[in-house]
């Protein structure tokens, strides 16, 4: 991204993307612009997904499709026009999608996935491919799917009438910028010496009346609540054998203790800073504790011994974990985030206090940075491959990190499904309140896919085969259920109804549903590409009839 000119006025690019930069910043935008999406299947659903990626400026896309545009395509796909009839569907959808954003490069390949895997395997070979992410939309053959490399993030999408689903399969996904509601950590129970010293200085004369040399009402009403809490915590410890208010009951007593020091003979009858202090007790007085996600990262073998490929996430995680456990560094606490909330205070005092938190965060980050450098050196990697800015950002989010290990597609789609997959389907199926559960839709959809794999076309295409096709899809769904070790019958269950819905569509898309799943899948892809926010793990079912969704880890 272009840097901001001296006047501060944003560039035209920053203006155009302003509403999304507020969500993922220049960092996320750069990643988006470096991505190259391959779309296999120029259906309405596929084009809707691409539309939502072309608009925010994904770098490049390639549409793979071997169909010729028919008039029936125009009834569901907005990215085809009258002039497209009879021409390559890949070429025409590419042209009408690329037209949405001149900053994006579009390509097309007038061929199908099956042929390409045979004749041009280098297209999808991880060592030669240009694609950073692959999107495959139905209809596709399971056997082709299983030939795609596991190292390229893949999004698999179904949109059949009112029934939709998508599945993500990608290598371990590590996220630093998860965008939690707040990054604030005030360290009230383990203040560092400079902070405590400052609080002591700022609270001198706090409890004495002004006539006895104490603070004036104005001063008293402007002592920031962090100072109040630190001061009253010290007082509390004196009368509680040196321990902090930890239990809910103790915290309520502590609140009352603070309240008892508030001056009430002031205009309005109360002091805002004291009220802020009382309100902050439950939220901010807590022992520094590792989140379960960060704990899981510290426990991962890749954190203990970062992979030699120089993955910055694991090297930095390793450095933070060293910081956490080293007595001379964090000594059992994470690097400080440095984020500081607003509070009633004089401007100068507020800024001083904020700077104390920022300086501490900088000090922590530089210690972590030194750990990173040592590891890079040990792994014979260039020491400038991870910058201080990267480390500072990582430290800021240290307690909000997230990593997701996705199950490979073959677990669910190979002829012999993995035990973990079977257990997951069984658990969802047997969930006692799942009578209406969308696992029934999943089972029906698997029956639908088996029909497609057998016949090379979806069920319900011909009016006179609807009944027969329905029976076949139902018995497929039953067979799928058996293959994961479930002996129940689908007869009379929701699965039977969903099969009827699936065959009703005859493999066709309903535009509103294509647009809907196109939005959801694109949103997940944006999260994956920008490495910000938390993508779903790993299967989403959405029923357009009841407008409900469910997530399964299949």
């Amino acid at each position, binding site marked *: 991204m272009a840097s*901001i000119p001296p006047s*501060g006025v944003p560039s035209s690019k*920053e*203006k*155009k*993307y*302003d*509403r*999304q*930069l*507020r*969500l993922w910043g220049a960092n996320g935008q750069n990643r988006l612009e470096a991505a190259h999406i391959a779309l296999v299947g120029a259906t309405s659903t596929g084009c*809707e997904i691409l*539309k*939502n990626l072309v*608009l*925010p400026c994904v770098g490049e896309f390639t549409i793979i499709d071997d169909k010729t545009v028919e*008039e*029936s395509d125009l*009834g*569901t796909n907005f990215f085809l*026009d*009258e002039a497209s009839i009879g021409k390559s569907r890949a070429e025409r959808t590419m042209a009408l999608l690329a037209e949405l*954003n001149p900053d994006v490069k579009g390509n097309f390949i007038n061929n199908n996935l099956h042929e390409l895997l045979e004749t041009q395997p280098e297209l999808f070979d991880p060592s030669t491919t240009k694609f950073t992410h692959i999107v495959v939309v139905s209809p596709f053959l399971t056997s082709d799917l299983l030939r795609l490399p596991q190292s390229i993030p893949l999004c698999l999408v179904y949109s059949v009438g009112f029934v939709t689903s998508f599945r993500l399969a990608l290598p371990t996904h590590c996220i630093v910028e998860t965008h939690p509601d707040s990054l604030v950590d005030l360290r009230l129970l383990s203040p560092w010496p400079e902070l405590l010293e400052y609080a002591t200085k700022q609270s001198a004369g706090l409890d004495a009346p002004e006539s006895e040399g104490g603070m004036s009402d104005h001063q008293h009403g402007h002592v920031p609540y962090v100072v109040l809490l630190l001061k009253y915590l010290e007082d509390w410890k004196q009368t509680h054998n040196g321990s902090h208010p930890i239990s809910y009951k103790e915290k309520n007593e502590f609140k009352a203790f603070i309240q008892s020091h508030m001056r009430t003979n002031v205009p309005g009858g109360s002091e805002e800073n004291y009220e802020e202090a009382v309100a902050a007790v439950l939220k901010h007085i807590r022992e520094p504790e590792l989140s379960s996600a960060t704990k899981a990262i510290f426990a991962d073998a890749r954190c203990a011994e970062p992979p030699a490929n120089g993955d910055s996430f694991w090297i930095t995680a390793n450095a933070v974990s060293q910081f956490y456990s080293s007595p001379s560094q964090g000594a059992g606490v994470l690097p400080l985030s440095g984020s500081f909330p*607003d*509070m009633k205070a*004089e*401007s*100068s005092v*507020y*800024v001083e206090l904020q700077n104390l938190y920022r300086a501490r965060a900088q000090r922590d980050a530089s210690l972590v940075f030194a750990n990173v450098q040592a590891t890079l050196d040990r792994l014979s990697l260039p020491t400038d491959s991870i910058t201080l800015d990267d480390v500072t950002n990582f430290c800021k989010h240290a307690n909000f990190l997230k990593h997701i290990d996705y199950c490979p597609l073959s677990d669910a789609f190979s002829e012999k499904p993995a035990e973990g997959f079977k257990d997951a389907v069984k658990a969802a199926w047997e969930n006692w309140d799942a009578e209406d559960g969308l696992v029934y839709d999943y089972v029906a959809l698997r029956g639908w896919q088996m029909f497609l794999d057998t016949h090379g076309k979806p069920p*319900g295409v011909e009016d006179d085969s609807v009944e027969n096709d329905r029976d076949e899809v139902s018995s497929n769904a039953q067979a799928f259920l058996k293959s994961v070790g479930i002996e129940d019958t689908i007869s009379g269950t929701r699965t039977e109804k*969903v099969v*009827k*819905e699936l065959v*009703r*569509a*005859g493999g*066709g*898309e309903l*535009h*509103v*549903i294509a*647009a*809907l799943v*196109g*939005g*959801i899948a*694109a*949103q997940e892809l*944006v*999260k994956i590409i920008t490495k910000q926010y*938390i993508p*779903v793990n790993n299967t*989403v079912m959405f029923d*357009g*009839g*009841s*407008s409900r*969704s469910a997530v399964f880890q299949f």
Partner: protein
Amino acid sequence: MAAVEAPDYASGPRWRDLNRIFQREGGFHKDDDEPYNPEAQREFIKNKGKILVIGAGGLGCEILKNLALSGFTDIHVIDMDTIDISNLNRQFLFRASDVGKPKASVAASFIMSRVPGVTITPHYGAIQDKDTSYYSQFTLIICGLDSVEARRWINATLFSMSDPNEPDTFVPLIDGGTEGFKGQSRIIIPGLSSCYECSLDMLTPQTAVPICTLASIPRQPAHCIEWASLLEWPRVFEDKKLDTDDPEHISWLYETALQRAREFNITGVTYQLTQGVVKNIIPAIASTNAIIAASCCNEALKLMTNMHNYIDNYMMYTGDEGVYTHTFQHEKKEGCPVCGEKKTTMMEVEAEWTLQELIDKLKEKPDVQLKRPTITKNGKGLFYQAPVQLFESTKANLEKKVNELMQSGDVIDVTDPGLPFSVSVEIIFK
């Protein structure tokens, strides 16, 4: 009704996929319902469905496309905005060369050129400029707005049109809204479901930063920006109104705020933040708009036909952490000033407050949130925002104490020049 030949569902190859779903009974068709009748549905969509889309922005562009590809042929769209460069990251019917043109007409022509047989009638103007005779011509209204005020207005207007003895006067409203990775869609059927006003307290009211913080103890970059726009601008440019769409005005605010921030050693004032604070910008992306607009149109399609069941009555979508939806029945609020039976809400006040303080609290009260409240009691005005004569004659009351003007248990009526209804508030002294 549209003059152009509507798509032929019976045999047109273009509509093959939609037609198939229309023609075949679905898996969730209840046996005790009437037998599935495809003919009646095709007929309805083709000849009777006349839809108004309010807003041709991020949601509106998507809604128009979705309706055109769902077989609706007579669509109207109303929007008062022109196209801005910052719309192009999601409003896919607009190009850089369209900047400055009215959204409604550019969107309408684009859709009509892409989907033959559909007629879209654009209106470039405010919804408040149209009256009930205009709104009553539609079978359904879909709203894709980012303004709470405009939604409250159309909701109240549609309820005021509804006559229980005349079923045709009930026009259902489908409303969509987004913010970042989140959004919601809902169906509002006058008389049956809850209304927009019922759910007002689901929005967080904006709490204003106290003026004394802005004036004397700023701590945040936003405090410096608000100081520049609320206090410095009117002081320096006495008679010139601040135009937040004018880049020169924003630049002045940015530089003024930056200067103030430097004086107080506050960091973080940027042009982007300045714009965000003064224009109250809500982040918006293509994918979320796509999800919510599609959900609105999916419900429209199901509501207008019996091809599948429509929701009763609300769906929330949250995408920043995984994929989460919550579909539920939002309930009518008893004291709702638009659809409620007992149209009074309650408020506890200090008898010592001035009327001005009471008004400030009213603005923030979650189920009131009026921007410019006018207060009357038993038809007698306590304070008027406008016209200027009434404002002048009542403004002295602002300094009076509440207990000089009313007693505990009194009911005051609160109105806002922007909204076609009044909120009755029972005042209880603490």
